[in-house]
């Protein structure tokens, strides 16, 4: 008891600075484990991608890169169709982000701000779309996509990816808009805004961080999705679908190069919008 009492005033002053040493150790250990969890695999993939053919097979593995070369990477990128697939992936992911945010956010706003008949049913239905296994829909989708002329286009793929990403977009933006007090909008109305102006001037700037998170989520879903992309395309494949086909018969260091290229855009994208993400999680970033 006496020890606790002596420590209390200290911890009260500044929590993060004066954590008891045991807890600080635990915190840093946790951080280290999490960092290793994320970074070590990425590091080894990078090592394989840039270490050349020999680097991949060397045993025991060295931690430090020995004979770095961009050879595998440039050769990989030079494989016919890889660059095209990369562009397709970016188009599909970009469109998915656009559709998810522009369709999902208004739905989320409506769910957050208005009460209407069937609101709960609607909310459940939004989630239920995820309960449908895509495999069942594969054949009818392919047929109708061919009929509509959407087959084998990044646009068609992005539509399916939007279906996958939209439920999350709706639910995330709903809680996002619920977190923005209605009074802000009401104040804007009273001080001369139309509903649309109030949304653009007051709600949107406050919602941006959350919308960025929604966008990331949609981007990652589209970027990683392989099943729908594989069945709905033949020549205009997205990168994941293309790699799935060609890497099965490629040397190991090419596979690493492919894997590395798959990782990079997501990491870069998250890095680019991290400021908004941190704001969502309440971490101050200056």
């Amino acid at each position, binding site marked *: 008891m006496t020890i606790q009492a002596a420590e209390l005033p200290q911890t009260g002053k500044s929590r993060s600075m004066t954590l008891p040493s045991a807890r600080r150790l635990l915190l840093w250990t946790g951080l280290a484990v999490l960092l290793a969890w994320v970074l070590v695999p990425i590091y080894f993939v990078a090592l394989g991608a840039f270490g050349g053919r020999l680097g991949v097979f060397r045993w025991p593995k060295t931690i430090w890169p020995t004979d770095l070369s961009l050879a595998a990477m440039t050769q990989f990128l030079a494989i016919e169709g890889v660059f095209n697939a990369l562009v397709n992936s970016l188009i599909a992911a970009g469109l998915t982000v656009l559709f998810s945010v522009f369709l999902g956010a208004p739905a989320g706003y409506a769910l957050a701000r208005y009460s209407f008949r069937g609101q709960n049913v609607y909310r459940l239905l939004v989630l239920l779309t995820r309960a449908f296994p895509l495999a069942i829909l594969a054949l009818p989708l392919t047929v109708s996509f061919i009929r509509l002329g959407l087959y084998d286009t990044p646009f068609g793929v992005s539509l399916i990816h939007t279906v996958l990403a939209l439920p999350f977009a709706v639910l995330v933006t709903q809680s996002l808009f619920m977190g923005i007090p209605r009074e802000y909008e009401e*104040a*804007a109305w009273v001080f001369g805004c139309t509903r649309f*102006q109030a949304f653009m001037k007051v709600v949107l700037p406050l919602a941006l961080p959350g919308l960025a998170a929604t966008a990331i989520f949609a981007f990652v879903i589209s970027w990683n999705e392989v099943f729908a992309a594989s069945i709905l395309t033949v020549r205009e494949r997205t990168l994941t679908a293309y790699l799935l086909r060609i890497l099965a018969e490629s040397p190991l260091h090419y596979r690493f190069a492919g894997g590395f290229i798959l990782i990079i855009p997501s990491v870069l994208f998250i890095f680019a919008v991290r400021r908004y993400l941190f704001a969502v999680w309440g971490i101050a970033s200056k």
Partner: protein
Amino acid sequence: MADIVIDRVVKEFGTFRALQEVSLTVNDGEFVALLGPSGCGKTTLLRIIAGLETQTSGRIVIGGQDVSNLVPRKRGLAMVFQNYAVFPHMTVFENVAFGLRMQKAQQAEVKRKVERAAALLHIESYLDRYPAKLSGGQRQRVAVARALAVEPAVLLMDEPLSNLDALLRLEMRTELKAVLREAGTTTIYVTHDQTEAMGLADRIAVMYGGKIEQIGSPLEIYATPATRFVGGFIGSPPMNFIKVQCSQGTARIGDAALPCPATGKDMELGLRGEDASLSPNGSGIPFDIRVVEPMGSHLLLTGSIDGQPARIVAPPIAKVNPGERVGLTVDPARVTWIDSTTGRAIAQP
């Protein structure tokens, strides 16, 4: 500047009647407080005036124009919200300038008016800060400055002081009164705090159960409550209500006799704690003291009169003890008579 006429406004939420035919006229430049316990409909009424809520029936007329069906921005008013609603992504300057910018005012004019509103509320020194860096009291000032910057004909305030601590509230109240008197704005102020309403308002409308129970100056409402509710709600300690029997124009409690205005009815004697004084010889209305609380400026005595609970305020130097029976003398002109069945006050003869 404008007057406000609220004409038989009704608001229903589903089957619940939040406002039942409320009518109220606020004169140009007047400060009216809507006072009542939570759930009495005062905020709903304010939001209907602002246009944030639509009335089920009735009319709102501001400055001679029927605004009942207009959107908020066309009503020519400003509002201070309970949680201030100061926009967190704008600097204090931009917050105060918001209404002027929406009116597409010239930059020089915006600057001039913002600076004047800021000076009025003493926030000049942090115009370029963001609201997150301000204390509650400072944010409250920003919210008021934002409302005053547009020089509104009508200012609506929804419990603007309720989120401040007691000391700051007292300070802001005094300042608010001075600022609004200077601006001469017609103001409707919603509060559940009677001292706020008494201190600020020219007139108070006491609301209860979706109705206005009484409208009058603070002193009128305090001294001559129109209903049992108003007497019990206003004043600290609240008014005491003692059931008495009236016969031949006289009510008898112990050996005291008071002239009463009606006969043959169940009556209640409404008595303010400070309107009774301890009689030197123990005669008058008998009061059994149970608890004595020294409050500094006075003694608060809790006990019973004729078996009914009552609170009496006595001078701080009075020599009284718990368990003692004392006598009270009252001025018949300062008591209120309430009809037990209707709960309404009976006019003095």
